């Protein structure tokens, strides 16, 4: 017998009688002010939050806060006057010099500050991880309360890759001293738009 058959046979023989799955619809949180809750959570984990209101203001913010001499990449055609449009055909290794990546989240989660991204909004899977700084645009009306609501949103959507990102990359491996910017972005900014 192959290892597969051996393992499956052993599992079948040894597993205990079937128990039921619990009801997880009991987990409901109602946020009075979901935008406020999101903003507080995101800031508490080291994120930078800007209530930009509109895409025009986002552009203004980007011009003000990021060096236009460095490589700024976006997947959003509407931002093409402040950033280079990401080329889906490019080799992911060529993204190492990206200073800032600007993408739009599918939605965000108030209880932990995270945004949900799928590869179609990332352009390249590696982009939100390899850029020195990450900026994510979050429509205020896309914010959900908890991870349960998040998965209700995602439902049975098919994607090749998706990820929650909850702030700048970080480590505390050296004596528990918090350092922002481990292997991923050094900073993460969320621009809230109406």
């Amino acid at each position, binding site marked *: 017998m*192959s*290892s597969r058959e051996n*393992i*499956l046979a*052993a*599992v079948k023989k*040894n*597993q205990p009688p*079937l*128990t*039921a*799955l*619990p009801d*997880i619809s*009991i*987990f409901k949180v109602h946020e009075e002010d979901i935008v406020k809750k999101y903003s507080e*959570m995101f800031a508490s*984990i080291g994120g930078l939050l800007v209530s930009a209101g509109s895409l025009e203001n986002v552009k203004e913010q980007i011009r003000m806060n990021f060096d236009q001499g460095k490589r700024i990449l976006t997947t959003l055609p509407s931002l093409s006057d402040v950033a280079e449009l990401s080329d889906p055909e490019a080799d*992911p*290794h060529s993204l*190492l010099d990206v200073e800032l990546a600007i993408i739009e989240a599918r939605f965000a*989660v108030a*209880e*932990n500050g*995270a945004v949900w991204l799928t590869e179609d909004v990332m352009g*390249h899977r*590696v982009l939100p*991880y*390899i850029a020195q700084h990450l900026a994510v645009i979050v429509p205020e009306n896309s914010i959900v309360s*908890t*991870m*349960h609501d*998040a*998965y*209700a949103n*995602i439902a*049975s959507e098919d994607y*090749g*890759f*998706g*990820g*929650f*990102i*909850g702030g*700048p*990359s*970080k*480590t*505390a*491996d*050296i*004596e*528990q*001293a918090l*350092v922002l*910017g*481990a*292997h*991923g*972005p050094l900073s993460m900014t969320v621009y809230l738009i109406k």
Partner: protein
Amino acid sequence: MKSTLDHATLAEEFNKDEERVDWHDGALWWIRQKRDRSANQTPQWEELREAASAIKSNVISNLHDYLIQFEENLKKNGVKVYWATDAEEHNQIVYSILKEKEIKQMVKSKSMLTEECQLNEYLEDRGIEVINSDLGEYIQQIDNEPPSHIVLPCIHKRKEEIGELFHEHLGTEKGLSDPTLLTRVARKHLSNVFLTRRAALTGVNFAVAETGEYVVCTNEGNADMGAHLSEVQIASMGLEKIIPERKHLGVFLRLLARSAIGQPITIYSSHYKKPRAGQEMHLILVDKGRSDLLARPDFRDSLKCIKCGACMNTCPVYRKSGGLSYHNTISGPIGAILAPNLDMKQHADLPFASTLCGSCTNVCPVKIPIHEQLYKWRQEIVKLGYSANRKTFSMKAMALTLSSPEIYSTAGKTGRWLLNNVPFAINNKFNPWYKQRDMPDSSQQSFGEWYAKNGSKK
């Protein structure tokens, strides 16, 4: 490479540096406190733990069908699936995947399973270089030491020691020990590693039977940097990582980082489902004792573990003895109940490395009764004759003393007389209890003697 010294001996070594022990103890307790604050701020926290535990019970009871469903979906998604009975078979599979592509270098994110399998050593013997990309694991690797904690691999090291390692291996200035500067140096060095490795291996936190996707959680972003720049992506997972449906991720991702380090979610929770264009994805399902564990009703709940490390951070024995003294990849209370399943003789000492205070059970996000399992393992180990001779002898002596009123009374008298008249007979290095402690003053009489004298008085 496995140590032949037991936990008590290795802990004694760790305890020689009192300042380090105090620091270690405090650092882990601080993380435990962060976990408490985070849990207290989460509505329905106890119900979440209950739900997580029930989902994992269901997984354990239906693992056979979930594994088949997961495999089917992986294949549908274009992922190649392998099954490995033990470490050797797992390592061979990884090697054969790399060999076929003529790959000589691989980058690896945190995976306790591959640590357990000693994959790095196996591949290095065959001319393949592996670099661990999690900062803590990287530090442990260049120091040629296993991780001492599953979430915080080098929590037992001081920054000056890490600075010394970086000076030796990465050419930093001697004496540099600032955590931010050291992290920047590692970031730069590893960025080049990510860019040049054709193969990347990750562990798996959760594998969804319903969709065939698997989720990898990190704070550093190292798993994603490796995986998304690789042409060959390999994931190694123990059978127990399965969860039934995607929506169950909601429960586990709410619990994991809060329990681990008091953070509301890991910075990165990456859902890998299909290879990207031009890339291959491989997934290895590893048994390595798990199907045996399923057959042990008293211990099978330990398969629910989501590797958050909360039981280590809270454990008074772990905090004061350090993870390396457990001489097992997974240390602390959870390691002490998982290890005897694999080799009871070699790990016979671990269930005794506990005060059975139950704090581990109280913080476990999937409600494994860890301290009860520790107690049950002790019984198994003694019954099968694997406990240390000294312990067996003293337990037999204790059993004899407690079963005979005459011996009990004489032993008590003798003990009190010794403590009062010749304390050095007990306060000496032959009595392990005396280490780091003074024996208490003894009373002049036993309760029995006092009662005989005073009990009838009104």
